[in-house]
């Protein structure tokens, strides 16, 4: 659609300079916010970010940032960047891709210093903040990996929410009955695959609009698990809904490193699986023959078919695989996060995962970082409500969603989904 035309600026005739004012305008608004809020409204406190926890073996000193100085510094720097972007665009030059990243990091520093500095106790644990972000992001990452697998092969997967929820349900029930959390993990993958099976059959075999099947599947899974939860599970919660938890596995020594220890080397098996899945799917999609075929089917099924790739069966198996991956993410809810299933407990995580996948430009690594960003903002809201901030908690809760809208409108507007995503393939 309209993105497609923006997606390939290089193809424009050399004489025609198309000026994209999105970046300078966005930068300008951000700089204005920084000037008014971070700088002019800066609190007279020092924001302290604790890098190390007391339990860490290797400890680093805390970072103390005076809120007023940092506020003015970031505001001025952001304004300069906005002016620079304005001049670049006016002269018809392209903006260096690092500029938005630098801008974002500066804005985050300014925002964090301001928000922590104006809290009642202006001190937060940076390692706790980041570790919590990763934990919150785990189901989102699994969900968006499922989306990547499906969309790269040309099937839009709106049913991520349903896959997560079914995974959470199956994990709780299977782990409770067997008394073994790992059985629950496998059951979760199976349940996710079953949801995918319906998606695949209806969208690939019966050519039903993929978005419709996805939306309806979410309702179906929500109704089904809600029904079973209030009949079978509530009748005997001890037997059906008290799954054992998956323990955290700490890797000796490494897990005691500051910050990265907690996020990389002190996770449950689901957490480690998440890292493995991101890397394996990335390598699989972009560095193997299988991945090339998958992407060919997603981009140009006719051409792929001509080359002898079985389009619909490739799609079918990829969608099933996506369901299994999302199922693992669902298991996180009942085997790691909370140790019981409750109705609609995924609470829209699947939709956030969908946004993360688009934000991450249909790339496993991109989706990983996008999901982390969500986890970060969600966790920031929890952390700030503990230290007591002047910002109403509802606005903090809104942040991840507003950031997504800005990101989708501003940054991702230029990215492009797999060309055949959403269109069924019918052999001529």
């Amino acid at each position: 659609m309209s993105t497609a035309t923006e997606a390939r600026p290089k193809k424009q005739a050399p004489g025609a300079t198309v000026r994209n004012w999105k970046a300078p305008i966005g930068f300008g608004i951000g700089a204005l916010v920084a000037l008014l809020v971070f700088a002019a409204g800066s609190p007279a406190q020092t924001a302290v970010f604790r890098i190390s926890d007391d339990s860490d073996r290797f400890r680093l000193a805390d970072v103390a940032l005076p809120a007023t100085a940092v506020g003015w510094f970031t505001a001025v720097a952001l304004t300069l960047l906005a002016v620079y972007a304005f001049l670049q665009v006016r002269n018809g030059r392209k903006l260096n891709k690092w500029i938005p990243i630098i801008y974002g990091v500066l804005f985050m520093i300014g925002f964090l210093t301001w928000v922590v500095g104006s809290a009642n106790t202006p001190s937060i644990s940076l390692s706790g903040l980041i570790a919590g972000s990763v934990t919150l992001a785990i189901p989102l990452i699994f969900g968006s990996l499922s989306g990547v697998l499906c969309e790269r092969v040309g099937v839009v997967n709106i049913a991520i929410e349903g896959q997560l929820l079914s995974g959470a349900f199956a994990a709780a029930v299977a782990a409770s009955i067997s008394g073994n959390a790992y059985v629950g993990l496998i059951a979760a993958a199976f349940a996710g695959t079953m949801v995918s099976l319906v998606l695949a059959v209806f969208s690939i075999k019966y050519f039903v609009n993929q978005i419709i099947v996805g939306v309806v599947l979410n309702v179906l899974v929500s109704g089904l698990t809600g029904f079973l939860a209030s009949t079978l599970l509530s009748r005997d919660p001890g037997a059906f809904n008290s799954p054992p938890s998956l323990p955290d596995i700490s890797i000796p020594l490494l897990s005691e490193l500051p910050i990265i220890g907690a996020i990389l080397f002190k996770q449950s098996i689901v957490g480690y699986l998440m890292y493995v899945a991101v890397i394996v799917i990335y390598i699989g999609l972009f560095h193997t023959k299988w991945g090339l075929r998958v992407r060919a089917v997603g981009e140009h099924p006719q051409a792929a078919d001509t080359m002898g790739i079985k389009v619909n069966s490739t799609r079918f198996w990829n969608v099933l695989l996506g369901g299994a991956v999302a199922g693992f993410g669902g298991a996180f809810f009942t085997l790691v996060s909370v140790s019981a299933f409750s109705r609609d407990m995924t609470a829209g995580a699947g939709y956030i995962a969908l946004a993360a996948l688009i934000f991450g430009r249909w790339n496993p690594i991109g989706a990983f970082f996008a999901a982390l960003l969500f986890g970060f903002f969600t966790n920031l809201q929890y952390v700030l409500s503990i230290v007591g901030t002047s910002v109403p908690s509802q606005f903090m809760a809104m942040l991840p969603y507003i950031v997504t809208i800005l990101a989708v409108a501003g940054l991702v507007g230029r990215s492009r989904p797999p060309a055949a995503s959403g269109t069924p393939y019918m052999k001529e």
Partner: protein
Amino acid sequence: MSSQSQSGDSSRSVLHRLMGGSTLVALLSVVLSIVLGGLLIAVTDERVAETSSYFFSRPGDMLSAAWEAASGAYIALFQGAVFNPRADTLAGSIRPFTETLTVATPLILAGLGVAIAFRTGLFNIGAQGQIIIGATFAAWVGFTLELPPGIHLLIAVLAGFIGGALWGFIPGILKARTGAHEVIVTIMLNYVAVYLVAYLLFTPAFQNPGSSNPISPRLDDSAMFPLILGSGYRLHLGFLVAIAATYGVWWLLNRSTTGFELRAVGANPHAARTAGISVTKGYVVVMMLAGGLAGLAGVAQVAGTEKVLTGGIAASFGFDAITVALLGRSHPWGVFFAGLLFGAFRAGGVQMQTQTGTPIDIVLVVQSLIVLFIAAPPLIKAIFRIDQKKKKKKSNKPDRSEDITTPTAAGGLA
């Protein structure tokens, strides 16, 4: 493709349409979904589980228990949705039906919002947020302004429409200007709306004085929809608004230039652009209309059924509206009857839950199964073995004539 199938339909005989066409498929879909739902109720029933332990010695016990569980639940649902023969008076007997109409009102209005966007090739998942913001606007007018009766209600309805339209404008303009996908933006705006209302209900402008709960003061009577059948029933004038809106949307889509342009954009945006129709304008206009219609659903809730603004004002109507629009195949009157059906399910489901203890979630299961089956006519035809002989020629193109109106532009997550 749906417009083609519509014109094709009219040339065929009514009998043919009933026997082999979409009506039969729709009917069978509903029957099959209800049967599957009944099976689910029976399988999870406690008495069925007890009797199944001695199934091989006395199979009749289990079968009758299963039948009683499923039929009992559905009878309770019917009595809660349509007609209650056990009531003492006629007024009591027809109360369930008026409840159905009351519940159907926001479903129809929001469903129209989803449908009209669908016809233009946009997938509006944001009805939930649009209902919330519409209700918020209408509620503020309702309990803050002091206006004469009639005018007060009119302004409240207008405010609700504008509130919803504003919430629809954001994804519309972002889609048109930046290409941001409306599915993502509307989903995100749903959450933003939820938190925005949660915040507002703690501010002095919205919170009921003297209350510590997030709840607004009651709307003035002058801003409330009058009750149609007197104070004994909850049915209010909002239902007539829903009928009027259905007709309005039908007229807009099928009789007006704007509607033609919107449908053209939905059918093929590239062709529409070539023909001189502004696609970007179409996106903005239709999203504002869609949001406005959902906003009216919010008005129906806050100025008709609930009478106060709370965080849960939209219930799950915004999401149910999507299934309503799908079941109604994005045709205004289809949406109207789909809204009535789902309204009946919901109203009856409440009664069923209190009477037989069957969780209301079964309604969600049956509803989603209906939409799934209706979307895949070949599946239904295969299950019931219809049309098998006639379809022997086996064309390469699958049978998509009965497909739900699925604009091509709503496909990929661009």
